[in-house]
């Protein structure tokens, strides 16, 4: 492996091996539509309770309002985040993070890395934390957050979360100006593919769908169904009548919260949510997130005895 990576996927692979070598469980993307890597249960749910945790993964993320039909140099409605969550946050997390930048070919001797105040808050997850956006030569390359509260619960211990916007980071490392021109696999591969070869058509299709086609009546109905389902799942007895075991269905309920969140994002992109309604929808999703967090802390993984 040369010092400077040659493709988008090489950057991902280097991050995977780096964090694997630092002891993280390398997980796979969550199999649902989410707006950010934070929504993966490996972050949201696992940051709750006192059970130690350490995971890293790529998460495809969808932000329907950011669609630009693949024309904007760095705005996409579907993009990748690289996410690391370690609980409790280790004392050398900043150094570990800087090591990951070195691993993808950023030479600390030549670049200006800065930690600039950025408080993180997710109104739909009922979560907040303090940290920074990390700048490399004036460009934001990551979010670095110490979780203080998730789903309305104080975090004890505190998790350290790192989020890398992969496309933007890779474009910088590879010196590419338009995301669609970025080499996806090795440019010398027998069949060399650019990011555009892989994703341009998707961006066009989804931009049209998100902005103009998605059926808002169906979306609204799905939103309400997910909301109902989430509450219904959690209303069940904790003891499973069939096995006699205590089984709290936190994650199945959380799936519904994730669905509601994504449906809200789609409705937002369709422009059918007014300013005042917006707050109300966010509040409804937050209620679901909190219910799921309440349920998760009653499970073994959530630290319940």
């Amino acid at each position: 492996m040369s010092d400077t990576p040659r493709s988008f996927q090489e950057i991902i692979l280097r991050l995977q091996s780096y964090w694997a070598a630092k002891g993280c469980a390398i997980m796979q993307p969550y199999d649902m539509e989410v707006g950010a890597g934070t929504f993966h249960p490996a972050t949201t749910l696992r940051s709750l309770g006192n059970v130690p945790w350490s995971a890293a993964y790529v998460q495809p993320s969808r932000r329907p309002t950011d669609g630009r039909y693949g024309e904007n140099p760095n705005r996409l409605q579907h993009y990748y985040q690289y996410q690391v969550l370690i609980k409790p946050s280790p004392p050398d997390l900043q150094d570990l993070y800087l090591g990951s930048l070195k691993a993808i070919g950023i030479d600390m001797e030549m670049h200006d890395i800065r930690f600039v105040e950025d408080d993180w808050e997710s109104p739909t997850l009922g979560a907040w934390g303090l940290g920074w956006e990390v700048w490399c030569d004036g460009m934001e390359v990551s979010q670095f957050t110490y979780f203080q509260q998730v789903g309305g619960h104080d975090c004890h211990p505190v998790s350290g979360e790192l989020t890398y916007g992969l496309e933007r980071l890779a474009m910088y490392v590879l010196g590419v100006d338009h995301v669609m021109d970025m080499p996806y696999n090795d440019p010398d591969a027998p069949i060399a593919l650019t990011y555009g070869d892989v994703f341009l058509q998707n961006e066009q299709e989804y931009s049209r769908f998100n902005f103009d086609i998605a059926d808002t009546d169906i979306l609204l109905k799905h939103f309400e169904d997910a909301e109902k389902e989430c509450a219904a799942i959690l209303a069940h007895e904790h003891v499973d009548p069939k096995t006699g075991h205590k089984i709290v269905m936190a994650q199945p309920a959380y799936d519904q919260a994730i669905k509601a969140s994504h449906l809200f994002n789609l409705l937002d992109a369709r422009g059918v949510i007014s300013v005042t309604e917006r707050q109300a929808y966010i509040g409804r999703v937050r209620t679901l997130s909190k219910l799921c967090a309440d349920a998760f802390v009653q499970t073994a993984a959530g630290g319940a005895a």
Partner: protein
Amino acid sequence: MPDLLIELFSEEIPARMQAKAAADLQRLITDGLVEAGLTYASAGAFSTPRRLALSVEGLTAESPNTREERKGPKVGAPDKAIEGFCRGAGVTVDQLEKRDVGKGEVYFAVIEKTGRPAADIIAEVLEAAVRNFPWPKSMRWGTGALKWVRPLHSIVCILSDEAGAQVVPMSVDGIEAGDTTRGHRFMGPDTFAVSSFEDYEAKLKRAKVILRADERADMIWSEASNQAFAAGLELVEDKGLLAEVAGLVEWPVVLMGTIADDFLSLPPEVLTASMKEHQKFFSVRDKTGQVVRFVTVANRETKDQGATILAGNQKVLFARLSDAKFFWENDLRIAKTGGTEWLDALTNVTFHNKLGTVAELVDRMANLSAQIAPLVGADATEAEAAARFAKADLSSEMIYEFPDLQGLMGRYYAKEAGLSDAIAAAAQEHYSPLGPSDDVPTEPVSIAVALAEKLDKLSGFWAIDEKPTGSKDPFALRRAALGVIRLVLENGLSLKLGTFIQDDSLLSFFHDRLKVYLRDEGISHDVIDASLAMPGNDDLLLLVKRTKALAAFLKTDDGENLIQGFKRANNILSQAEEKDGVEYSFGADLKFAETDEEKALFAALDAADAKIAPAMTAEDFAGAMSAMADLRGPIDAFFDAVQINADSEVLRRNRLNLLHRIRTICLSVADLRKIDG
């Protein structure tokens, strides 16, 4: 006399919090030391992105022994009282002494405190300071319970004198104080030991950390100015940005870069806003005022003299400005069509949930502007059109991105829409004046819309009972009222506020703000009250003219004496009226005048009447006051020569009626009863 050095080393502290944190550290520690009985010669606090430091010089080595006696309850007092006394004094009951103080035996507590070494005191004070530090926002990390602004890694706490340095033994949540620290994150990462403040500052510098924020700011400012000057350009001053940037670096390296030609068509304000908000760049302008370069401040030196860093920053700026240009061009296209699309969009923007949408606000402003226009010399149609366009830019992409540019962008867009210069100016100026030092618009159309905007805001929030209370003024209504006052006074406008505001309490709010405004000009509240009591007090210009004339009059010898004469007349008259149960307003008759002084007063009052009434009609307050001043001599002479309560009831009544004329004439100018002294 030892010196104390403290350093709290953490992960990056937000730039905006550093200066106050350093000051808080100094206050908490020095207050704590003094309270525990230590004294010191001097202290100084410092901050960098990763550390707070405090140096205390000439500290006493230990606190003195103290002995305090406290007198307690009588012997035989209820147990509860005795226990309470012991608790307060920190002694046990058997330690109390009984003493006879002449009225029986009383308990005494003798509290003796042995002096303590400075190190013990410092350890306690520092731990308390760390645990109770007033960060605006703080956090926990790892498994700990301690809160700090970001994870706290190490503490230096040493006492040093000629004999050397010693670590003050203390720890907070497992962080043990020591004598070692680190330099720059990348250029001086190794730990090193320090033995005094001088040693600390010098070693930090060697490890590429400038400890003092002002020194970093000076370095940045002078280096950036020099680079700009060398290129025949000028650095745009921004003190807030300078302080912030000085808080983002431990070792400032100034780099100047160019802005691609593609973006030079953007308004300079947009360039500056985009570079400052997103990238914390300084702007560099040429002689014409066009922003042509930027200055960024890196936190490190590199082998290539910052070339890679600058190239990266330039690239980021290119992307940012591409966005800005995209917004600007989209906005100009909409502006060219008159901005109707923006105005329509305002129907979806809430102004306040009880006061409707911004579109409704615009309607109200338009009507009010048309109504105000003739009173301020503006064309009603033009003022209305200006109000209709004033909020259009709020829907633009540029304002979505840079809210601080509201108004300014409106001005550009109004020009693009082909609207008149007056309308374009009003789009920007109707927000003014924003503060006491902000310029007041002087263009009639701008004045009309600026007044309409503020009067509507005040009436609206008054109507929904969202008035300012105490220090709470979330809608900046005090500022709006002061804005109206300054618009009226500085432009010399005769405007009856009562035409536009219905609520009496809102009018008194204006009067309160006016008092504050005039107090700053050295006019005391009683003088203002004397004018406020007169009719027409909703005309602020008239009110201020009257107040100023009165204030000037009261400073003269005649004025001061006339007030005394008036008060004497008024007091005698009021007492008589109360006693007799009548008002002596029948008119005094010259034929009952006995003495020359009395006759002279009749003549003087006739003369004053003849002058004051027309002067008041002409709003010539100075003339009226000077006519009133002529009464001083006759009034004084009258009181010296004449007995009001004469034996003859006819004479008495006539003289009281004469006093009533004095009162009436004086009160026609201002309510002199309100004047103090």
